């Protein structure tokens, strides 16, 4: 019975942790993309002839900014379905 309580506790804390990982990661990624996007729009408005070049760089940066967030999401998903912290309880 006590085992059950411990398992429930680990799962509860894991759920909270997953929410934090995905939520905080999303905050960082979205603010970063917002700043970068606004700079791109400013530059596009000043120099429309640079739009194709800047657009390519913008997509590259979007992928790089999203990287840490998506790594966090992948880890969170891993913990959601194959929680290694539960291995101690068998």
């Amino acid at each position, binding site marked *: 019975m006590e085992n059950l309580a411990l398992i429930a506790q680990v799962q509860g804390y894991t759920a909270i942790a997953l929410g934090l990982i995905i939520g905080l990661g999303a905050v960082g990624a979205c603010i970063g993309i917002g700043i970068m996007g606004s700079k791109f729009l400013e530059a596009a408005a000043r120099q429309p002839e640079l739009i194709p070049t800047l657009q390519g760089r913008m*997509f*590259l940066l*979007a*992928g*790089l900014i*999203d*990287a840490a967030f*998506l*790594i*966090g*999401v*992948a*880890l969170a*998903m*891993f913990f959601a*379905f*194959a929680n290694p912290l539960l291995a101690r309880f068998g």
Partner: protein
Amino acid sequence: MAGEAPADSTAFINHHLTHLKVGEGFWSLHVDTIVMSVLLGLVTIGLLYSAARKATPGVPGKWQAFVEMLVEFIDTTVKEVFHLDRRFLAPLALTIFVWVFLMNAMDLLPLDLPGKVAGFFGIHYWRAVPTADLNTTFAMSLTVLGVVMYFTFKAKGAGGYVHELFTSPFGANPLLWLPNFFLNLVELLSKPVSLAMRLFGNMYAGELVFMLIALLGAGFFTFTVAGTAGMLGQVAMGAAWAIFHILIITLQAFIFMVLTVVYSAMATEHH
């Protein structure tokens, strides 16, 4: 796999996340990853080779025009950043781009299709996306690290490289050797790790969202209102996510390629 009660959803996802493994512990091999990546590598080579074989100096056909566009795009990207002889790096970049793109594109296959096909051969687990396996992405990024080290030694020589390891960026004072070395080590090791984990994270998360969307339509065969609503939701959200994922697939392949080129270029520039 259809029409299960919600309690089985974790089992469904766990089943779809299991690799076809041979051996155990450190020596386990993911057979599905190996087979898919080798197969797609052969497809890459075959596609590009067929374009080279049938190339005509006259009016090009559509496939030749497409491959020429691709090669020119890669060549421009490499030429902008890398200033030494690019006869090794540009073909490497092209291979990386096309191969990673094809491996990522396996994510667009219907979720249960590889499993059904594998079932005909009596195989119970088959993960179709090689880049959703950490082994593939780390293998590629460690190879890229090897290429970067090759360019480093070629441009700076062994002695020059060791000198740079211990004296940049802070200076040549012997007190600074340890901080310099530590910083350079972190910079060197973070490159392959971030390269591998970025690609893995994107593909793994994408696959997982496809699985979660598939669970939405799991209640269809119960013929209830909720089941039908779930099915329509699955089709709509599946379409939306797949369209978004097409962008992600191309973008991640492009990023891997560009970072390979940029790291090689950074390795050859002198301070």
